[in-house]
């Protein structure tokens, strides 16, 4: 398969970036999208040009490091996957593929397609934990957790923190991410004691960092590689309301 790639190149955080067009020939349809970029980079190195920088690590859809806004969609034109799980068979021969970094005020570009997502870590540091020190925990089966609660909690905990929700949202809102974290703990009895403080602090941090507001377009849900539901956002709204008035 042959492709025309239009890729955002930006030397560093301060530099002005631009789109650069590359042509790539004879790519196997079984190739993953990032392997296709590897092939491009191999060619660039041969031409003594700097390779395209993009975040990648596990390449099996779990570390959440890969990103990329491909032809108008975070993680590209397929559902429930990360970019590393996207395969070229999802494109047509001769396609023009536009690759952009994720855009949001709290996600500044570091270089080319690599963005800084440490804003997410800052939110977690505000309250995305249960304050338990190592040692001294009761027997694991001393805490009975209904299967349904455990499953719902796991649904939310499956979030990989990739930031596709922010990238997809027209407002660059981080509500799906934050609500997934809030829900994960709010649904478990262990998480209840700190629930009010947690949601208040995490939401305050989210606002402070400059993420947008949720306007319920639900684009985040569509693009989430782990299919996290917007019902987690409703749960966070509920938790937040309760934290304020309860």
């Amino acid at each position, binding site marked *: 398969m042959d492709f025309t790639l239009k890729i955002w190149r930006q030397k560093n955080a301060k530099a002005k970036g631009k789109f650069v067009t590359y042509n790539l020939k004879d790519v196997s349809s079984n190739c993953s999208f990032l392997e296709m970029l590897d092939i491009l980079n191999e060619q660039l190195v041969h031409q003594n040009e700097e390779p395209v920088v993009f975040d990648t690590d596990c390449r099996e859809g779990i570390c959440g490091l890969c990103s990329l806004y491909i032809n108008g969609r975070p993680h590209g034109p397929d559902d429930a996957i990360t970019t590393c799980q996207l395969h070229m068979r999802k494109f047509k021969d001769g396609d023009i593929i536009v690759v952009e970094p994720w*855009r949001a005020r709290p996600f500044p570009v570091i270089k080319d397609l690599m963005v800084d997502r440490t804003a997410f870590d800052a939110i977690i540091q505000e309250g995305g934990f249960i304050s338990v020190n190592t040692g001294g925990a009761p027997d694991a089966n001393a805490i009975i957790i209904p299967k349904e609660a455990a499953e719902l909690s796991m649904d939310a905990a499956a979030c990989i923190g990739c930031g596709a929700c922010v990238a997809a949202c027209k407002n660059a809102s981080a509500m799906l991410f934050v609500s997934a974290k809030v829900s994960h703990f709010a649904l478990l009895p262990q998480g209840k004691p700190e629930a009010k403080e947690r949601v208040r602090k995490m939401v305050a941090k989210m606002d402070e960092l400059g993420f947008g507001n949720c*306007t319920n377009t639900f684009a985040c849900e569509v693009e989430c590689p782990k299919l996290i539901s917007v*019902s987690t956002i409703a749960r966070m709204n509920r938790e937040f309301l309760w934290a304020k008035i309860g």
Partner: protein
Amino acid sequence: MNFSFLRFSSITKKIWMSLLGLFLMVFLILHLGINLCLLRKDPTWFNDAAYFMGTNYVIKVFEVILFGGFIFHILVGIILQLRNWRSRPVRYKINPRTDTPFFTKYMIYTGAVVFIFLVIHLMNFYFIKLGWKESPVPSLPNGHPDFYVVARWLFSQPFYTVLYIVFIIVLGVHLYHSFRAAFQSLGLNHKSYNSSIETFGIVYSIVIPLGYILIPIYYLI
């Protein structure tokens, strides 16, 4: 005025937005009820209702809340939107192709259109009531403006009628997204009642605007 709402957290603003929105939706039903009196040849029902609305003290209190509600809803909406625009300083080259309902993304614009309509509407009726503007038609014997005739006079102008219908359709679009979104913002999202909320929202956003549109159409015929 207390501007502390500017510092509200994003979710607090959203909660206010939806509470006010739902309140305004209730008002729309009430307003429609009165408007439907216009369908009678006899003006007394409509004028009596208008008179009641204009003089009753309970209603007067509610009027303040209603105006406050409108202003607050609009202000918070604008504040939210300004922040949303700022949260993505560099925009994408390719427009998002994520599959989401079309109108959900244009609430600020439909809202702005509804706001313009609201201003025109207030000028046409409320300003007369306040005496800021001369009534285009003679007043009632009791000295109150004859809104029945004002309404009929306005709808006799094709330009105004068309504008009115367009505005009401835009309002419908605004409402279409609002209903479910309001419940979502208030934290009400559960598979056991989501479909009911959604159905009710669709019915509401079609039936109410249809009711409003019915009146000029009726006059045209």
